[in-house]
Structure formats: C-alpha cells, structure tokens
C-alpha cells in the first residue's frame, strides 16, 4: 500500500499514538512542542485527504486488512474531509496558540497530561469522522468525550468542576442512547457497517425497533451536539474551561456529533424508512428554530463574554440542524458550510477572548472597558470574527447564511417564515456582538490609569489574526469548503450511486 492510501488511518493514529509519548515529556514546553507537532501533522494529513477526495472520490481503508462488513472500514469522502479539516485545523491552530495561555492556567507538572488529553481529543474526533462503523464511532466518541472532560476540568476556577460533571453525565447519557440505537439496528440487520446497514435496513420487516433506534440515535447525538433543549451542559462547560480548550472544543466538538447525526439520518435511514424524511424534519426543524431564537435571545442579555459566546453556539448549532432538517441538497450544503464557517468564526472569537484574558481577569462585559485601547489588535480581530458570526457579507458567515436562506426558500411553504427566523436571529446576533463591541470600544475603563498599550503575546495574537483573516478569505473565496460541502450534499442526498 502506498503512503497516500494509509492517510485515513494515519489521520487517527498520528495524534493518538503521540498522546502517550507526550505524557513522558516532562520538561515544560516540550510537551507543548510535541503536541503541536502532532497537531500540525494531522492537519497536514487532513489537507492531503481533502485534496484527494475533492473530485468526489471516496477513500476507503480496511482496518487490519479485513474488508468492510467484517472488519472496520474507514471512509473519507467530501463530507468527512470537510469536518476533518475543521477538527484538525481547530486543534492545530489552538495548540499553536495555546502555549502562553496554558502556561498561565495549568500548572507545569500537569501540562504533559493536559496536552496528551488534547491529542486524544483530537484523535477521538478525527476517529469519529473517518469511521464507517457504527460501533467504532461510539468508541471514538468516548475517547473524545473523556478527553474533553479532562480538558474542561483543567479550568481555572472551581466552577469548572460542576460544569464538567454535568457535561460528563449528559455526554454519557447521549453516548449510551447512541449505543442503544446502534444495538437495536444491529439486532435487526446484523451489521455494524454504515453502508451495509443502509443496504440491509430495507429488508427489515418489523420496523418498530428501527424507528425506536432512529429516535435513540437522534436524541443521543442531539445531546452530544447540544441541540436545544438538550444543550444545558454547554454554556457552563465552555465558559469555565481553560480559554484555549474553549477555542478547540467550541470550534469542532459539537459539530462532529452533528456530523454523525446527519450522516446517520441521511445515509442509514433516508430512503429506507417510509416518512422518515417527514419525521426527521418534524423533529429537527422545531428544535432548530427554537434553539436559534431562544439561545439568541438569551445571548442578548448575557453579561459574561465567554458565556455569551457559548450561548450563541447553541443558536449556531440550530442553524446547522436547520439546514439538515430540510433534507435537501441545498440544505445539507448549507449545513456543512455553516459547520465550517461557524468553526472559523467561533474559533476566532474565543481566540480573541483568550487574548483578552491576558489583561482582563474578569471577562464580564461590564469589566472590559478600555480594552480596545489596551489591545487594539485583539479587539479588531474580535470584531472581524464577530462580523463573520453575524453573517456580514464578505465574511465566511455570510456564505452559509446565504446558502441557508436559499435552502429555506427552496423548501417550499415554510420557506419564508424560516427566512424570517434566520434574519431575526441574525439581527439578534448583531445585538449581542454589538454589545461586545461597545464594551470594548466605547465603555469607560473601569480602572482608570491602566490604559497602557498591552497586547497579548505575539504567538497567540498571530494565530488569532490568522483565523480572523481566514474568516474574510473564506468569505470571498469559499471554493474549497464549498466544493466539499457540495460534494457531501451530493453524497448524502443527491442519490449518488
């Protein structure tokens, strides 16, 4: 086998096997360097994979040399390549920037463990994405979950602990629900491979278990993905996590769960269950709409910067789900694009927050007066990413909103009211982003006299700005993610052979 053919396996194996090695790297800084190297390597692999599947091919890798229904297969297609880019990109970028911030929040002797957990999280998420086996997805979901519990528990104050405990409980329930669903499907079809399931589920006569399984899988994954109203774990967990962890997780963790959800629903159940389309829409659409509206309104009145952004994530997840709930090619394209774009925007925002945290211990909006004067570059980056989150044209966020609205209009009768929802929530986004901007730029500094120029460390700032610029770049030249998103949509609903 050539090296290129090994890429899907290496995508998971490289960060995963680096983790134990990192634990051994005791001197400070070395653990970070090692982890970053591994992160960048896996990002490079993801890019290579994306290039390889850009023309609509699917890379299949038989683990252990055992072909699909018997062994575990890895599959990389356009959709997975997109999410892989996102996961490894977020992981690598956050790692690259992490050092200084983590040095302040995690004791040196705990850092090797921290970075090892980080790599495990990365490997777990990547593992979920490349896997084509329902149970294997569960295993890697648990790796990533455990890793994220660890990462979040590293949070600076004690409130991180109850938050992460809640996450642990809900995450485990979600994973177990998923496991139940997979079990029921396995029971009725005798296979665990997704493609094989898709093929065999049509032969099942007794549909009750399959329907219940679909319910369990959907709800379980919705829990993991923090779909409204199952999102209660998310705001606190993201708020109290170490800043860099928030960057990493907010950019990709929930999206991977959504990825599995979309994949399951449109590959395994779609076409095979009568009325499934209708039922899925019936389930997902109201939740998405409610999530968008409720979370946006909550965010409008939130006073803590990180929690505000975390709450907004719930709304953004709503957008992704909304796109998926149309069960149309346009909808999936919009969903996939929004995953990518939201990761860019939120990642950039949280990076900027990490920068801010260097001089502002208290991240409540009321305490951030004078920030723009002290940290002009950080604040400017934050504004750029904020605009992307709103969906201002010229930024990445606009592209997905555009696609989403187009998809909504295509979806028929409901279209216009959904467009209204999207627009109203965009305006809400304007409100909450603008509250941040006002706090940063126009609020009087609370502690007078300390308005000297004091930017965040260069390393962090550079990454932040790189992400901010990417927000603009992908707003003007979204071809790569768009090609992948189109490819995934064609794959998932386009009835590709």
């Amino acid at each position, binding site marked *: 086998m050539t090296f290129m053919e090994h890429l899907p396996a290496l995508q998971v194996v490289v960060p995963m096997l680096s983790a134990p090695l990192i634990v051994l790297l005791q001197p400070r800084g070395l653990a970070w360097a090692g982890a970053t190297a591994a992160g960048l390597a896996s990002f490079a692999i993801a890019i290579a994979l994306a290039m390889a599947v850009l023309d609509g091919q699917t890379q299949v890798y038989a683990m252990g040399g055992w072909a699909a229904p018997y062994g575990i297969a890895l599959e990389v297609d356009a959709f997975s390549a997109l999410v892989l880019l996102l996961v490894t990109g977020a992981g690598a970028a956050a790692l690259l920037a992490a050092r200084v911030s983590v040095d302040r929040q995690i004791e040196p002797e705990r850092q090797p463990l921290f970075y090892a957990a980080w790599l495990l999280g990365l490997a777990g998420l990547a593992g979920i994405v490349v896997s084509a086996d329902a149970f294997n997805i569960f295993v890697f979901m648990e790796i990533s979950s455990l890793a994220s519990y660890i990462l979040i528990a590293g949070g600076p104050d004690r409130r991180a602990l109850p938050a992460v405990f809640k996450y*642990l*409980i809900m995450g485990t329930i979600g994973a177990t629900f998923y496991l139940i669903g997979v*079990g029921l499907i396995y029971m009725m079809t005798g296979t665990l491979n997704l493609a094989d399931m898709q093929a065999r589920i049509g032969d099942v006569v007794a549909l009750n278990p399959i329907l219940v399984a679909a319910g369990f899988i959907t709800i379980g994954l919705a829990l993991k993905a923090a779909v409204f109203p199952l999102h209660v774990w998310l705001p606190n967990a993201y708020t109290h996590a170490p800043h860099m962890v928030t960057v990493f997780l907010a950019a990709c963790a929930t999206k991977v769960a959504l990825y599995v959800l979309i994949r399951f629903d449109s590959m395994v159940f779609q076409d095979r269950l009568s009325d499934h389309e209708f039922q899925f829409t019936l389930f997902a659409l109201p939740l998405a709409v409610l999530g968008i509206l409720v979370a946006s309104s909550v965010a409008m009145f939130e006073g803590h910067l990180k929690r505000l952004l975390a709450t907004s994530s719930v709304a953004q997840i709503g957008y992704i789900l909304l796109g998926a709930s149309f069960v149309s090619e346009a909808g999936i394209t919009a969903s996939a694009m929004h995953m990518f774009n939201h990761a860019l925007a939120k990642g950039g925002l949280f990076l900027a927050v990490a920068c801010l945290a260097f001089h502002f211990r208290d991240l409540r909006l009321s305490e951030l007066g004078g920030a723009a004067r002290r940290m002009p570059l950080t604040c400017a980056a934050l504004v750029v990413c904020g605009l992307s989150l709103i969906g201002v044209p010229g930024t990445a966020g606009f592209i997905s909103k555009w696609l989403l609205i187009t998809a909504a209009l295509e979806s028929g009768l409901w279209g216009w009211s959904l467009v209204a929802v999207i627009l109203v929530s965009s305006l809400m986004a304007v409100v909450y982003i603008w509250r941040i901007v006002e706090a940063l730029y126009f609020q009087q500094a609370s502690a007078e006299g300390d308005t000297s120029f004091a930017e965040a460390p260069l390393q962090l700032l550079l990454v932040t700005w790189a992400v901010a610029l990417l927000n603009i770049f992908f707003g003007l030249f979204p071809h790569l993610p768009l090609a992948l998103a189109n490819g995934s949509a064609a794959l998932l609903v386009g009835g590709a052979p």
Partner: protein
Amino acid sequence: MKLLELLGYYNYWVFAVVLTVGLYAVIRKRNLIKKLIGLSIFQSAVFLLYITMDKVEGGTAPIIQKGVPDQVFSNPLPQVLILTAIVVGVSTLALGLAMVVRIKESYGTIEEHEILGAD
C-alpha cells in the same frame, strides 16, 4: 406457547426497566455519587441488551472446541462490543468519581443544589 413466547421478551423488558431505573436516578438524584451510580446502572442495561441478542438457542459460548462437531455457537460479535463498552463505562466512572472528589474539596458538598447555590 404464547406465554413462553412472551418470556422470550423478558430480557428486553428487564433491559427497559433497568435502563429506566438508572436514568431516573441520574435525572432525579441530586447527590453526585448517586448520579454516577445511576449512570453505571443505566449503562449496564445496555450491556444486557447486547448480550441478550447474542444468545442462540442450544448454543454455547463461541469458543471452538476441537473435536466437538456440529456445535452451535452464540454470536460472538455483541460480546466483543460489550467488552469494549464495559471498559468505557468503568473509565467514565473513574473520571466522574475523580471530579466528585474535587467538587467535594472545593465546595464542601456533593449535593447538586447546594453546589449551584454556592456560586
């Protein structure tokens, strides 16, 4: 015959009930350790579901004995899956307990409402 057939579903019902009991504890109990115990019961129920489906009537554990022809074996695959799932369960439990210990140290209590009240 009818009754016997119903008995064939007994395992599933037990699965459902145990699952429910575990979930109830997780949702309703405010003591964090109790929640974790509930969670492990909840997970155990799933093990039962999987193991139930592996059984074949007249079958035996899937360890091939040399020289015994025409043996019927139960399905090995769910067992493999559950082996992994058990490990996952224990790992989650250990992590959860570690968190509870830290929560107790920093809050002085492991009752959910008191923790929420403390912040």
